[in-house]
């Protein structure tokens, strides 16, 4: 190396240094982020289940009884709270705006949550022309469309949760789940449990928080 080449080296080093220091170094990482719970469950001792207001009756099974049994067990196990049933029947949807009603529904239970709402279960059969998905190396002709049938079930639950102490709503959300079955003999009772499970998962994530995996950037400089 000659002495005359020294400034060139210095320039090169300066450029390298500038590039190295100017660029932002970061790590993309996937972490479990807790979700802020919408209901502070620690403030309450138990849950009181009331009948749901049904928008239409279901022929195959007693929808209210199934909701009570399914959510009663799930709320007790999943949230670790004592669950009790209240047999009072709700007059109409205006009751969800009536704080006094909820305050006086079970005066002996001061630190409880009332689990109530409206529910609707429906089913229908739909037909459609569906193109079969083409696989690789299959014949080059366009995929043929075939007439297919699916049995659809929907469960719509508008859930309201009230504080027994104040009568005010601490949570309110509408959940609608629809599922299609290829089996034309799919029973409504069986489909109800699939749909109730989906709603329960979403409800629990909302009220008790839970965690979900998300991406974040950690930066070195």
């Amino acid at each position, binding site marked *: 190396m000659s002495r005359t080449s020294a400034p060139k080296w210095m320039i090169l080093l300066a450029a390298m240094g500038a590039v190295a220091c100017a660029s*932002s170094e970061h790590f993309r990482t996937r*972490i*479990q982020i807790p979700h802020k719970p919408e209901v502070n469950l620690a403030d309450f001792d138990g849950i009181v289940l009331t009948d749901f207001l049904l928008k239409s009756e279901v022929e195959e099974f007693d929808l209210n009884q199934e909701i009570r049994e399914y959510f009663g067990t799930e709320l007790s196990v999943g949230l670790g709270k004592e669950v009790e049933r209240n047999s009072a029947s709700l007059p109409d949807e205006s009751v969800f705006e009536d704080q006094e009603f909820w305050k006086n529904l079970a005066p002996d239970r001061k630190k409880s949550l009332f689990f109530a709402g409206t529910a609707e279960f429906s089913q229908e059969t739909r037909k459609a022309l569906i193109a079969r998905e083409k696989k690789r190396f299959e014949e080059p002709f366009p995929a043929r469309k075939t007439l297919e049938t*699916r049995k659809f079930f929907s469960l719509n639950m508008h859930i309201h949760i009230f504080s027994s102490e104040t009568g005010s709503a601490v949570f309110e959300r509408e959940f609608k789940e629809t599922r299609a079955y290829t089996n034309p003999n799919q029973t409504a009772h069986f489909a109800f449990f699939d749909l109730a499970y989906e709603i329960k998962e979403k409800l629990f994530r909302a009220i008790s928080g839970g965690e979900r995996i998300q991406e974040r950037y*950690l*930066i070195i*400089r």
Partner: protein
Amino acid sequence: MKKNTFSFSIGILSSIFLLAACGSARPRNQMKFGIQAAQSDLWDEAIFRWQKVLKADPESAAAHNNLAVAYERKGLWENAEQEYQRALRLDPENEYIQSNYNKFQRNLEATEDDPEPEKKEKKDVKNFSP
């Protein structure tokens, strides 16, 4: 001999130059150590390291961002919000901090779940919708 001495001095000079250009190596090491701790799910250790970085350099947007992520991971939402805002005040154009803060805010405001990956049943619902 003269040539060797010259190369040696160039080497020393370049090291000093790079160190000076990138600032002190110690906070940078603390920052990296914090990231390693975070990647091993040792978030308290990571917080400790990034707080040390901030003692040495309170204007480090990166350290404020990383601390915010750590607080978010621990469910300390108020602290996370403060740190994200400090990070953005110091480096408002940083797309990584912006991305983290947007996701953080979406989580706080979320009333519905993230869109789920399309399952077969969901696809069927779409194909057969009237």
